[in-house]
């Protein structure tokens, strides 16, 4: 039993990846138990999740829709999640905990919506401008948190929580006062020219939503990975994250790196915000802090706070959240069941360090036992 587990999880290379897969497998089993308990067939339920996200074909489709349209709208939801989880990851590398992703997303999304999103600018100008505004606003808020931390020793968790609410209420005030759509009670939708998702493009007899920023998200993840692992900037950020004292002794400026990291993290949150509010949804719901910013923390940690890992974990979590709509309509189960399974996955992912220690220890035990023989 022990040997089988060790063999399954490997010794060193790729161990973390295998352990992640292992914990996902276990949590899917636990999820199955929950589904069986409420009298549903787990296999068809999981199938529904994949069907809802366009990875497996559904039994029937409405006009102008097929698997590909579902998959594209899945990518549309996935894009902001990747950016948001990258934002959390970068901050974690520097030992900072960015709980303010939500507020930054909202601020960036709002700023881009009311400026470019409601102007008459043409698409080639408007779309890049939306992203630039997102980067600027997000970076500014992030930088503010970093500066407050360094200059006044204000814990970043506190300032981020305070800013989340402050920004949420400010945005809500402006939307309700000036930009509210009388029917939907959300903010006025952004113009098609500025929207980062091409909505309802008619080709090949289909009506597809194309998330323009998706390739950009993958590129950003690779870029962040490169910066973190291969450049001095990344090295300094990680050094500060590991030990302030050691970094200072090595002549690395803590101040610069804290602020730099928060600016990068904020900029990524800003892009997440514009891809969410000026892409996926197209409008902003007042009075709510987007939950994605909090989920991104868990997603980032599930991906072992590695930029490439973030792509995979975002993929997994978005399948659950996006596929849940189809699942609940097909099986007649509450939509929360998907959140429940997500939470179970995260619990097991949180234990991955324990599994790693356990495996390492068991390997040592087995080696010793064999040596004695």
């Amino acid at each position, binding site marked *: 039993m022990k040997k089988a587990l060790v063999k399954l999880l490997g010794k060193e290379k790729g161990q973390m990846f295998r352990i992640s897969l292992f914990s996902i497998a276990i949590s899917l089993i636990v999820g199955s138990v929950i589904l069986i308990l409420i009298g549903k067939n787990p296999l068809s339920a999981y199938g529904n999740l994949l069907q809802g996200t366009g990875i497996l074909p559904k039994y029937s489709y409405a006009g102008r829709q097929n698997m590909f349209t579902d998959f594209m709208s899945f990518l549309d939801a996935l894009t902001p999640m990747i950016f948001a989880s990258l934002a959390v990851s970068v901050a974690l590398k520097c030992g900072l905990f960015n709980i303010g992703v939500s507020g930054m997303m909202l601020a960036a999304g709002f700023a881009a919506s009311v400026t470019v999103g409601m102007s008459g600018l043409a698409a080639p100008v408007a779309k890049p401008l939306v992203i630039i505004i997102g980067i600027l606003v997000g970076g500014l808020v992030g930088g503010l948190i970093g500066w407050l931390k360094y200059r006044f020793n*204000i*814990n970043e968790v506190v300032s981020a929580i305070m800013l989340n609410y402050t920004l949420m209420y400010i945005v809500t005030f402006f939307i309700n006062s000036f930009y509210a759509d009388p029917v939907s009670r959300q903010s006025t939708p952004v113009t098609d020219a500025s929207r980062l998702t091409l909505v309802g493009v008619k080709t090949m007899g289909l009506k597809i939503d194309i998330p323009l920023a998706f390739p950009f998200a993958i590129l950003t993840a690779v870029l962040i990975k490169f910066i973190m692992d291969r450049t001095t900037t990344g090295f300094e950020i990680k050094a500060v994250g590991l030990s302030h004292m050691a970094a200072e002794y090595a002549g690395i400026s803590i101040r610069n790196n804290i602020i730099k990291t928060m600016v990068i993290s904020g900029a990524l949150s800003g892009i997440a915000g514009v891809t969410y509010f000026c892409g996926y949804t197209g409008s902003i719901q007042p009075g709510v802090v987007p939950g994605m910013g909090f989920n991104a923390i868990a997603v980032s940690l599930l991906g072992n706070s590695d930029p490439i890992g973030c792509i995979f974990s975002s993929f997994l979590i978005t399948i659950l959240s996006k596929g849940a709509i189809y699942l609940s309509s097909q099986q007649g189960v509450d939509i929360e069941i998907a959140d429940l399974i997500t939470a179970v996955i995260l619990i097991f992912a949180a234990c991955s360090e324990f599994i790693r220690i356990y495996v390492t220890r068991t390997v040592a035990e087995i080696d010793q036992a064999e040596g004695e023989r």
Partner: protein
Amino acid sequence: MTDTIIIDGLAFALPMFVMSVGGIFSEKSGITNLALEGLQGFGAFCGSLAAVLFAYGFAGSSRMPYYLSYLIAFAGGMLYAMLHVLLCIKFKANQIISGVVVNILAVALTTFLTKRINEALFSEKSNKFVLETSMRFTVPGLSRIPVLGAVFTNVYPFEVLIIVIAVITWYVMYKTPYGMHLRACGDNPHSADAAGIDVNRVRAIAVILSGGLSAIGGMSYAYSISASFSPDIYLGFGYLAIAALIFGNWSILPTLGACLLFGFARSAGQALIQRLGMPSTYNDLVRILPYVLTLFLLIFFSKNNRSPRALGEIYDKGKR
């Protein structure tokens, strides 16, 4: 006007304070507790469920369901906190992840269960347990004192409960051996261990206690602000409580100050709106007042803030 500010401010600040005290216990022992949000929600869920069920068992005017629901909430919060204990101490999970996960699970689980239970027991589709708003009382005599009398006017019973709890927890934290062990575990677990203290046991008790205390806070919000249990209970009060305890530099009295400041700023903003007769959309603008004020004051007060030294570190005996 000052009366309403004080009355509403206290009713908001004290539940937040009791959550913060829970957080202080956990964090002083060295376990980061972002789970307060989930703990208060889960506790409120248990308490509200109990209140709804007991309402059938007791006569209409009986106060028993009210008190019993607090007891059940306390127990439920402690029980749910064991998940955080299990993840952080037994499975050596990253404490931040564990906290976030405990929150996510609490939202999913309580919403799911509320729907299921409503359907099974009362055959209605609702994600709410409707509660009565808590009764209030006014202390005769004392409430006549100008200005300060407001403290004794329209008091929720839970405010008294929270004050009592605060005094007890303060005593436990600073005057008993357990309190000293707890603080030692948060600052230097290795020397605490060397002195014969079971670090993991002390920490486990602290986290479980924080669950119970958060639950009392959550239950109080369920009885006062929302008069029901629904997913709306997850408004972020738990996160605010964390902000308050960091503002209060992880000590009980300054944290009370932070909570009161926050509560009064909040109720003052609302009173201001009514006074000036501004349109309702301006409500949102005034609501930022407590948050901005807190941030502004932190600039002056957080110079010497220092978290417990071993906060967030997994205790590893072999590291000594």
